[in-house]
């Protein structure tokens, strides 16, 4: 479009002064360019009355630039190109007579005659073809989009059914829990006093203290592990992401220190394939070296078994302990009678027995060293299991309800749920050095092609919430933001802005990093292909 600048036959200013008064005027304003009987004309903003000769005389008189529609004299003016054969367009006055043929003015009217060819026939044709292609994409995309909407409808049905089922299940489980609670209460109430007494045992008290100590230690341990992991992530990111060519001594030192600490191989830190092997063998070596004292737990066992230890029901344990001690000492037949009774009679027997024993106790005849253990513990665990089950069912129900709610949440899957179909759909783009992956509504990742490592670029946070963008508008759904990824060396947490447009495929097209660790990814999705409203636009185009 760059014509040879400024041909010598450019007309002198006198010729410019002879421009038609309506040259460059938008059709809607042409009627306003009329000379008064006094031979004057008023600026469109009404600010000044000028001689009619001042219009289009290449000198700016009106504050709104309206006296120079056809020249570049006013900095704030606009120029209208008729573009016969195509669509008329307005350009800034600063584009007029600058020696460049504006693409918006295919008729060449923005420059002196002879400078720019009239290309409106070709450009108009190309434009129509392009529009047609775009329409086609949109039509196809809109069809796919409609399947997404029906998918969402099906999902709605499925989720509603699921919620209904789960609601029923929760209800029935609730009554089951209530029943078991009742049994447990009764079992426990009989033994409560006894239990209180047992709990005063120094052994139990010490055990309780150990329990809390262990729990606290574990909490501190978890905190440290968490911190170590953050540090390790930072350092791994640094090791994988730094540019060894920059010869930043601090970075190199940090990377080498980390490699040594974590037992990674030296050398090209970005060649991770070799490192993975090294890591494995290194770990094996470490484990082999570790010798455990008698009875001490291995790190692995600590990981898996500590929770079990902490979660032991101490009351149960107390009861079992009693039982164990009881086994050692002489057993009262009375206390142990239950073993000989048929199951059928057991409940009655227990009631009677409890009654008798408590009586005896009351009178100080017998100490409460009875076998209450098996019964309470059974009732307790039955109740606990039922409660767990209830909790799970409630969680499932909550999840299903939440999913149902987000399905038509304009700030999530959209009012018509069109995006639901794409939930957790993972799209990839290979840029040579890295493959970028976005699992929609999930996480975005960067995967170096030469290593098994991945860097989180963040999780889906929100749509385009820029000021002025209406929630639910097409513009709103044109951008997804993923935030809170792994922090960069000397930089921010990685994040992604995903810009989407209508296309027949769900795909990522380009990846750029305009600022350090802030990625811009473009892509297409049929979910953005809104159905064409009627046929008016294309029909109008045909007429041109």
């Amino acid at each position, binding site marked *: 479009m*760059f014509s040879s600048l400024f041909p010598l036959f450019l007309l002198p200013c006198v010729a410019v002064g002879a421009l038609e008064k309506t040259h460059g005027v938008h059709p809607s304003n042409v009627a306003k360019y009329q000379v008064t009987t006094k031979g004057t004309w008023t600026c469109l903003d009404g600010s000044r009355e000028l001689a009619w000769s001042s219009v289009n005389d290449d000198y700016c008189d009106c504050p709104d630039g309206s006296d120079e529609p056809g020249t*570049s*004299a006013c900095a704030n003016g606009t120029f209208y190109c008729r573009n016969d054969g195509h669509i008329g367009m307005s350009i800034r006055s600063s584009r007029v007579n*600058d020696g460049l043929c504006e693409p918006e003015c295919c008729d060449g009217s923005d420059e002196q005659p002879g400078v720019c060819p009239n290309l409106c026939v070709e450009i108009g044709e190309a434009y129509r073809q392009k529009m047609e292609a775009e329409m086609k994409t949109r039509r196809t995309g809109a069809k796919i989009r409609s399947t997404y909407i029906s998918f969402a409808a099906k999902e709605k049905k499925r989720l509603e059914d699921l919620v209904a089922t789960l609601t029923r299940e929760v209800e029935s489980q609730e009554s089951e829990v209530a029943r078991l609670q009742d049994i447990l209460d009764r079992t426990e109430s009989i033994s409560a006093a006894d239990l209180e007494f047992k709990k005063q045992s120094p052994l139990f008290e010490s055990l309780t203290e150990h329990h809390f100590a262990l729990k606290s230690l574990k909490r501190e341990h978890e905190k440290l592990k968490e911190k170590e992991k953050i540090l390790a992530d930072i350092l791994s990111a640094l090791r994988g992401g730094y540019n060894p*060519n920059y010869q930043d001594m601090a970075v190199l030192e940090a990377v080498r220190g980390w490699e040594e600490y974590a037992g990674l191989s030296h050398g090209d830190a970005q060649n991770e394939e070799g490192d993975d092997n090294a890591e494995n063998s290194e770990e094996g070596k470490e484990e082999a070296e570790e010798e455990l004292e008698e009875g001490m737990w291995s790190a692995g066992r600590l990981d898996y078994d500590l929770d079990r230890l902490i979660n032991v029901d101490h009351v149960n344990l107390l009861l079992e302990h009693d039982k164990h001690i009881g086994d050692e000492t002489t057993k009262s037949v009375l206390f142990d009678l239950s073993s000989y009774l048929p199951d059928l009679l057991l409940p009655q027997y227990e009631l009677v027995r409890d009654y008798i024993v408590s009586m005896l106790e009351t009178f100080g005849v017998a100490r409460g060293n009875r076998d209450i253990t098996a019964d309470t513990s059974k009732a307790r665990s039955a109740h606990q299991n039922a409660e767990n089950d209830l909790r799970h069912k409630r969680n499932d129900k909550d999840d299903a309800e939440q999913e149902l709610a987000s399905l038509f949440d304009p700030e999530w899957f959209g009012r018509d749920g069109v995006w639901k179909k794409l939930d957790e759909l993972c799209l990839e783009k290979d840029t040579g050095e890295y493959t970028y992956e976005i699992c929609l509504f999930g996480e975005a990742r960067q995967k170096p092609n030469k290593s098994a490592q991945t860097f989180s670029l963040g999780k889906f946070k929100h749509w385009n919430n820029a000021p002025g963008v209406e929630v639910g508008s097409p513009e709103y759904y044109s951008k997804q933001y993923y935030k809170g990824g792994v922090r960069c060396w000397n930089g921010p947490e990685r994040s992604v802005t995903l810009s989407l447009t209508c296309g027949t495929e769900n795909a990522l097209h380009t990846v750029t990093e305009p600022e350090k660790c802030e990625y811009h990814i473009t892509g297409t999705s049929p979910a953005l292909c809104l159905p064409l409203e009627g046929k008016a636009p294309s029909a109008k185009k045909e007429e041109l």
Partner: protein
Amino acid sequence: MRLSGQLVPFTSLLFLYCSLTVSALKTGDWKTCSQSAFCRRGRALAGRAKEAGANWKSPYAIEPTSVVVAADEAAFSAAVKSSIYPDITFKLDLQVLDDGVVRVRMDEVDGLRQRYNEASNWALNSEPSVSKQIEWTVGKGDVRAVYGAKKDISVVVNFSPLKITLLRGGKEEIVLNGEGLLHLEHFRNKAEPPPAPTEVPEEGLDGEEEAQQVMEVNSASSWFEGEPDGYWEESFLSWTDKKPKGPESLSLDINFPRHGHVYGIPQHATGLSLPTTTGEDSFFDEPYRLFNADVFEYLASSPMSLYGSIPLMYAHSASSTVGVFHVVGSESWIDVAHPKDGSTNTHWVSESGILDTFLLPGPTPEDVFAQYARLTGTPVLPAHWALGYHQCRWNYVSSDDVRSVQQRFDEEDFPVDVFWLDIEYSEEHKYFIWDKKNFPDPVDMTQDVEKIARKMVVIIDPHLKRTQDYPVYKEASELGILVKPSSGEGEYEGWCWSGSSSWVDFFNPGSWDWWKKLFKTTPQENGFSWIDSTESVGIWNDMNEPSVFNGPEISMPRDNVHYGGWEHRDVHNINGMLFSNQTWQALLARSNPPKRPFVLTRSFFAGSQRFGAMWTGDNMGTWEHMAVGIKMVLANNLGGMSFSGSDVGGFFGNPEPEMLVRWYEVGAFGPFFRAHAHIDTKRREPYLLDEPYKSIIRDVLRLRYKLLPMWYTAFRETSVTGIPILRPQFVMFPKDEAGFAIDDQYYIGSSGLLVKPVTEKGATEATVYLGEKQAYYDYFTSHIHRGNQKNITVKAELHQIPLFIRGGSIIPTRERPRRSSPLMKMDPFTLRVALDDQRKARGELYLDDGETFAHEQGNFVWREFKAEASKKGKGITLSSLDLAAARPSDAVDGKALSEYRGTNDFAASVSPVKVERIVVLGLGGKPTSVSTDSGAPLEWDYYDGVAAVGKKEGVASILTIKNPGVSVSSDWNIVIE
């Protein structure tokens, strides 16, 4: 450009992790004087002299019988002996040049080795012409020459002790060796025993210590030279300099007994009038250092060396301006002291090289600038587009990124001429080689930028990645034109952006044609050429100090070997200039007919002004750096580097919007106007800002473009006269003492524009010093201020730039906003006529095609605009005169045209360009008529305000003449009655 976090210990990693810009300057990475053996020796010498007081006497003296005066020119030579080394001979050469400049040279004769004697070959534009008229007279105790139009200048060379004095009217202006600190350490053998055994002191020291003292110190030389200190080896941090040549430093005291202000010796981040470094209550403790260095996050007030060095100092007082150009290419330290008010002593110590010093007699600032320009050349006239706005960032990451940045500039209607690519365009930092993953279509991209009449500038650094798959390195290696290590064999290897790298030795003439070949845009038979570029691409030469990440002081070991066997220490400060020099030559040879090259360099030396622009390197986004950047650009202007600027926005850090706006206001009034940003910073292209900042910056950019005719005219002037483009108060008003230390406001060329950029956060007002009794018109409001050697206070809200037109000036502008400057070529002009108290004014306008050398063949327009009071009544006559026809020999640098054809091709091409508006400020009353001299009435408009004549202040009267129908390139008269 450097990454942050250099040499930070591992333990501070967490700290680093927490804050973005963490480590500041590591002052420990660069030497202080006491860590540099020769500087230590130099300061110790000065110390001994001070202690000895009146008893101190220079050991150097001329052998009276050896004086030989040339028969046909103002030159003489003489043998010089030093009493401490009677066996060593020095030769002194004195010349007086045509323009009265005195050249003093001194070198050791028949020594063990040759001192480096080629610095002037690189710095000087041509061999200076020695006067045929002036004569030396040999007397009993001196040789002297008297000259000057009034025979008021004399140079006296005293024999014993050796002392060289330049006098004006019988008063000392410049004195060399007046303090007896001249010393050329002669070459010696390492095992050399102390010369000429002398008497052992009566009261010796005890035991072993005594023996050692006797061996090394108590010689005839020790009273002067002191003890041997770091002669043969010295270490700094982990580096050891082997110094195979031993001591060879050069010490010289240069005094200005009648001058209380000294300027120059760029580049340092300090005030323009150089603060003291020695003496009581000295401002700095360290001497000014000249040692080109890639100083990471430099301090905003420090005598530390920076990227470039120009060993040129001006001394100024109300009575005269003189200068000293001390041509040394090695590291130098300069102490400045004021022994008493109104006088200045300086002491220069350099690591190696001969003494080669030019005394510039002035006596006006303009004279000194011209004298220096005759030696090293004037700033080359740049391409016109290079005066537009440059948009840079480390990095625009892909060709699509470049396209979209350009698109955003156009959508938001911000003018810009140049888009820049920093190092990440290249594959593994192999310069010339595009990273095709991100820049798959470099030529298409460049052409997309060129479509809007814009240009691209691409970086080429001097370090070559040492891999055989890099043709540039491979060819250089095969040609044997790389810098050699201390062994003198093979290739020096160091680390830079590209990892393991080697450096082209541009001192080697064998590299020159090869470098030219690389820039050809067509395939070449003899190897690589840059076919992935276009003939309009400009080049950015960075890291040419040279910056070596793992080298001493982030540079090359001093014992590296260059062409001719010279050590790196000898040529260090010149090294960077040769790189931009050769790039300039290469771009010149790239196209036929040649186009004016654009080369930006970070490192520079005296003479670099012949090869393009420089910038002040990696500044920080702080208000202090913004402010000191102005002083640095002023100092660089005085050093000949008029085409200079600081990175707008600051290289490091994220400037807040207010700071960024102010920085644009600073940048728009610097000769080289570029915004740049570090890779770790947020994007800050002006269109990304919110309102009102965005619109203010758009207005600032447009103002720059409106004033381009003024800027280009100023560049023409400096390209011919060497007078800096930015002129501080002392240059404009050399007799006004109150202005000598002012370095935060300046005039632009001869335009009459005075600007005081605001560099304080939250400022709403500014004080401006007006050095004369004259009306100064606010550029934007036409308000008349009258300062008369006093400060005035003006409004300076964020959108307001304190900018004034000095009464008596005519400013040509082009007011129509365009996307880039070439698109303004046919736009009409506005003339702002600011009348002075005599109701007259004048201004100039220079135009040419802006990109070729056709102007050297007379293809240009050079006009003078005048306003003159009518002989009778209150009328004014405006006229346009052909300066080119009147003064053809002064029009173009280096081409004394004998005649000028007004019908030249360029003038013809712009003949339709008209003057669309003439604004006359400060008339005494409403005109009765405005007409051309043929009597045709013109359309005009009058606002009644304050007149230039008188004492009133307030908005001036404004006469606006609409479409006067005159061409900018023809003669015309307009009569206002």
